[in-house]
């Protein structure tokens, strides 16, 4: 721990900590910076980012969007083609391990019910669930050998996003905001979007023990009001509010002048100014009517099968453009009777075919549109897109047509943001059952992602209850092979 202290330099000195706490990292610090009339963006010499002396090295990615396929897609029905599994449908699965699934599995191979074909110049095999995304395989960097520990949804989602399979730990978006600060004046840095909340709820995107300034703004697709308390009260106008805020600022300034040792009084004054700006900036940022008809069609915002995710992806692109650093969308739509429930739509326990077909229709087109849109705007180079769920599924069947949970081997892909395009890393065994070659643990993935964002995962620490915590706990290796 003492090693970390010296590596972290000023951050861990008590006086500096006191300052940061009083200034309220993130927004508060930004507010302080803007109060002083300075530009507030990451890498400047003011505010929290400068105090943290971060990033540690030049980043390849500035933004992340994680398309979280809630409920866990099956690797062998999406991106991990296994001819051996296809050929041996109904036969015993070699190495079948009754400890893998969450419930009971048959030990018998279940061939993928989908049609497979090769795509792109990389010749990547993709099932017919993704007619749109398959056009982008040459931009994708696949990890076929992901694995983690937890074998149920909520703990695994926490493990994938926070590095620990129990609640109370900060998620990656919060860590990034803590480490890098904000890139914008008037929007939060970390945004989560969901329809039905995923199983595990807010614990998956928690700021944990980090200051609350790093918590996510969660946008619930079911609610008419996306962000709380943005709307002016009845009878109020921006003009009348401005008059009040001017009065407030002068009174608060008088109050603060008498208390010169209290830095956060000034931060609070400017937080009202920031809030004032957010009232117009945030609604503008999520206003999809400003997008062209062509863009709406590209994403499929009118397609009843995928319109929810389409609107979320399009909103996300607008937010990314405006300096939001980390966005996570929980996605999927299950069919009746496939064994999944709304909070884990990809969870095809009873019928992998009907379940994944429906989830594919709900996610394929918008995700592909997002890739195309980011690329056409030149944003894909420094925006990291990640597609994946909390674990994979068993190669043997559950109840004949379904698949059970499998944290032992699964596929995620990334695109843009400094990863190798059209690249495949690691592999599962010939049945797609367990990761065997170049295995990538969640800690390794996090270490690599932080590296792409300019952060050293061993140096990004926060002291809590007597210990310096990391996103990567005590593990994690940066996988250089993934980096372009």
């Amino acid at each position, binding site marked *: 721990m003492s090693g970390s202290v010296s590596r972290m330099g000023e951050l861990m000195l008590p006086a500096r900590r006191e300052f940061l*706490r009083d200034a309220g*990292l993130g927004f508060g610090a930004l507010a302080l910076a803007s109060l002083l009339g300075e530009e507030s963006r990451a890498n400047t010499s003011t505010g929290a980012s400068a105090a943290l002396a971060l990033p540690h090295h030049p980043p390849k990615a500035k933004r992340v969007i994680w398309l979280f396929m809630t409920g866990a897609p099956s690797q062998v029905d999406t991106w991990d083609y296994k001819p051996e599994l296809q050929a041996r449908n109904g036969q015993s699965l070699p190495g079948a391990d009754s400890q893998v699934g969450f*419930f009971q599995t048959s030990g018998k191979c279940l061939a993928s019910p989908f049609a497979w074909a090769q795509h792109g110049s990389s010749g990547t095999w993709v099932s017919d669930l993704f007619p749109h995304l398959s056009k982008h395989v*040459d931009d994708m960097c696949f990890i076929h050998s992901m694995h983690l520990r937890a074998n149920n949804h909520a703990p695994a989602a926490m493990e994938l996003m926070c590095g620990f399979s129990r609640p109370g730990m900060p998620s990656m978006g919060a860590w990034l905001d803590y480490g890098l600060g904000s890139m914008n004046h008037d929007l939060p840095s970390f945004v989560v979007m969901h329809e039905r909340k995923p199983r595990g709820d807010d614990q998956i995107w928690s700021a944990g023990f980090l200051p*609350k300034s790093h918590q996510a703004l969660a946008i619930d697709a079911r609610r008419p009001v996306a962000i709380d308390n943005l709307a002016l009260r009845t009878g109020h106008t921006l003009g009348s509010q401005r008059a009040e805020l001017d009065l407030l600022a002068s009174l608060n300034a008088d*109050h603060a002048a008498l208390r010169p040792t209290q830095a956060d009084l000034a931060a*609070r004054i400017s937080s009202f100014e920031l809030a004032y700006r*957010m009232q117009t900036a945030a609604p503008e940022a999520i206003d999809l009517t400003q997008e062209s008809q062509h863009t709406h069609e590209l994403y499929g915002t009118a397609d009843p099968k995928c319109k929810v995710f389409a609107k979320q992806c399009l909103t996300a692109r607008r937010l990314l453009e405006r300096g939001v650093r980390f966005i996570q969308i929980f996605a999927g739509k299950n069919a009746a009777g496939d064994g999944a429930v709304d909070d884990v739509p990809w969870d095809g326990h009873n019928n992998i075919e009907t379940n994944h077909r429906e989830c594919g229709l709900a996610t394929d087109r918008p995700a592909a549109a997002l890739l195309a849109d980011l690329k056409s705007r030149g944003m894909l180079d420094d925006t990291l897109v990640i597609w994946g769920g909390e674990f994979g599924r068993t190669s043997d069947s559950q109840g004949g047509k379904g698949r059970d949970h499998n944290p032992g081997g699964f596929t995620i892909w990334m695109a843009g943001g400094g990863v190798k395009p059209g690249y495949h890393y690691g592999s599962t065994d010939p049945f797609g059952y367990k990761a065997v070659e170049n295995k990538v643990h969640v800690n390794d993935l996090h270490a690599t992602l932080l590296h792409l964002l300019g952060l050293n995962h061993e140096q990004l620490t926060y002291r809590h*209850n007597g*210990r310096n915590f990391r996103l990567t706990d005590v593990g994690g290796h940066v996988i250089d092979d993934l980096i372009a």
Partner: protein
Amino acid sequence: MERRTASRPAPIRRRAFFGLLSAGLLVGMVGSSLATASPTPEQVAFFETKIRPVLAQHCYQCHSAEALRAGKLKASLLVDSRAGMAKGGESGAAVVPGNREESLLVAALKYEGFEMPPAGKLPDEVIADFETWIDMGAPDPRDEPLASIDERTIDLEEGRQHWSYRRLAPVSTPDVKTAGWVKNDIDRFVLAKQEAAGIAPAPEAAKATLARRVFFDLTGLPPAPDELELFLEDGSPDAYEKLVDRLLASPRFGERQARHWLDTVRFGESGGYEFDGDRPGAHHYRDWVIKALNADLPYDEFLRMQVAGDLIKPGDYDATAATGFLVAGPYPGQVTAKTVEPIRYDQLDDMVATLGSSVLGMTLGCARCHDHKYDPIGHRDYYAMIACLGKAVQRDADIDPDPATTKQRRDAWLAERAPAAAKFERFQREELPGRLARWLAADAAAQQSAGWLALDPETFKATKATLLEEADDTVSASGKLEADDTYVITFRTHQRGIAGLRLEGLASPSAPGGGPGAGKDGGFRLSTVKVTAAPLVAAADRKPVTPKLSALATTFEDPGFEFAKALDGDGATGWSTSGQPGREQAAVMAFDQPVGFDAGTLLTVELKFEGKEHGLARVRLAASDNPVRAGLGGASAPQAAREVAALLDAARAGGRDPATGPEAAELLRWFSRLDKPAAEVRDALAAIDAKEPKPDLLKVYAAGNGGWVITGNSQAVKSGSQDVFVLARGEVGRKKGKAEAGFVLATIATDVAEQRLLSAPDSQPLSDPRLGLASFLTDVPQGAGPLAARVIVNRLWHHHFGRGIVATPNDLGTQGDPATHPELLEWLANRIVENRWSLKSIHRLIVTSATYRQSGAVSEAGRVKDPDNKLLWHRKPTRLEGESIRDALLAVAGTLDATMYGRAGLDVKAPRRSIYLNVKRSEPIGFLQVFDQPEPVQPVGARGVATVPTQALTMMNSPFVRSAAESLAKRVRTTLAIPPTDPSGTAVIDACFTAALARQPSETERAKFAGLLAAREQAAKGDAAGRQAALADVCHLIFCLNEFVYVD
């Protein structure tokens, strides 16, 4: 991106490698690699279920790394690793894979040469398992190296030298120069340091400032204007001390201080994880904390109850509720056989880590996998501590919160019942025999002619439909009339030799098709009939019987859907009568053996209507001793008379008095339907009996001893053992032997043996080590009492100054912050012990000190020499916690509902204090969350204080704050009696300031607000609502002031 792709060689396709191999070869590779390189999952399963538990239970005590460390190792043999087994002990290899003859372990188990385990030979089947396992090649996944654990030897003596682990020592107060400033001894410690640094303390704060500070600190609420006035007008020298005493005695004190404690014990009212299931009885713990703090329950008792209240006072409401502490942490909502054990160890970890942080200021959780890297907390200590908690699990206890009242109510009821009971007995004794005799003579014979006995339903229930009893002993279906229903109807009878039943499906005007079926066309399909006869009075020779049924006759049946099909036990076939809407149908069935027990029978008739057809709309059943003769349409007699006759016969045959003998109750039951005086006396008693008071049981979410509780799982999972094992690296798969109960050795006095703290005064072991743990925590001479005292006084200091004497209240270990005033901390720790652990006495000491009463005035010396104010030379403003901001808004608005205890729900608009809002882990309350409410999953000692624009948005725009502003405006205008259409004037501004900020505005402030108010009122042009809104705007802006949320 495309450019880069083009310039890159073809991407690597690792999977293509597999594509070149033939399928057969591949499968062979996979199979063989699994067999040779490591044990197969089946082999591991065998080892884990059959071998390891036996080794752990019977051998590790003397043959493991743990035994080695404890100096208990025998014969230099270690059997807790594969390497140890192969190496063997003094006599040679314990296990030779594949060769049971040469494996000394087998010989020892068989008591051939050695006799192991010494306590007694293991069962033959266990020994056979070991032979099977050795034949398999002794597959063993325990691959840790022989000196298995990466040990850090803790130097206990050195560890104990850290200040917080030392025994409590007396402290003398330092001398100071400016003794006149000193109000109590706290000030001597603080002033001595300031004088040494050349800093002078700030003067005492103005009375109003002090009032607002101490009100918020002690009660979490601002002073109400009348309370403020009372204090400001009290000119006596101890006016402030009197105020402090009033506040310490206020019920609001416990509500405020409980919130601090709940932070440190990760209190929540739901399970977290998946589903986040509610714990409706969890708030009893919170209520208990409030009550205990208000009552100034001594802190040692406060802790003892939380750790072991259920054992100390079983069944007591307060003691039970207190144990909510142990089980307040998150717990998964889905548990299967595969996850139950790791989840149990996570739960124990949550308990012990919380105990460590909240009570001991120790990071005990760090020793789960290995010895603590910095503090003297051994891996062994961790498992000793969780072994103390090994039996504790969560439960919903049914508790009577007020047994005294329950007893009073019961006594009152018994007194009321006595005369009716006496009357009843007198009737039975004196009148009943005569009435029965008269009835027998007059009416009994008339009842004997009918062939059927109409059965009077006792209970009736359907899976879907609502069943109701009607006249004529019929049961009719209403409500959800759907296909695939099941009716269960029961009857009591004292008839013997019942040989069959008649089932009638009656017309029903209320059914869609008029009956007999509940379908639109009057259709039904009865798929299965099951009859069970059970004895009313259990006896060894009376076993329930299920007679086989056969069809005797029916009024009508569809071809292929005969009545016999309802009796064939096949749910897919059944009896139906199509095209007969509105017509009554009947069917008679015979039993293969007559039924009827000698002390009465409970007949259960189950009618299943499986498939797509409906059930019957209205049914009636009758019984007969000769169903063939009674016939399909035969007459039926009502049940009561026949039952009375049967009971009289039974009594007479046994030579008993029917009116007072064992038949009496049943006899009266039936006879009262025939005889008015009997009914009256029986009903009178029944009416009182129905009022029998029941205790108002509460479901209390608490800890208790038991097997592991498995909740919310979709599979049957057996509850687990209560044993706790030491886990290498914290992994459930790497058990190192049973963990013995004990404590963190560094917190025990050097001359005290650990086991003594687990023993009763008579040296017998305590019934449960949890009791030992409960006393150990506050045992000053022998146990962790000194540490617990330091931790709690530091917490109280933290809450009154915004920073503890140690700034890391959850960690007083070597990695915690150093104390700014170590002697003061020690002095306070001594005080709380001397004051019999009274928390209020320490609060009082702190808030009446001159240190606490300082103003915020900034001195140049202080600013230069101690910019962080560590020496406490002035008072820094502190921001209110979210709960206090919300409570203050409600209080100032005059809408606060002061009701105590219970659940106030999840709606921020509920007018209750914030502590009563539910803590649902997946649904934090936005208002509180935005103001830094911590996540209720880990102990939090010092909350973060962030400043974010969402707080400003909340204050500016949220309906909750606006509504408080409107309420205050209304209140002020009403109090000052200003007519709705009149201008408000400046008096209202003064009143709003006093309510919200406990002071009058300055001239400048008054002028500024008056300007705003005048402009807004002018715009309203005499409109009453507009004027009111203008005043609300003023109130709203006052709420937005920094001063409203920062307390000087």
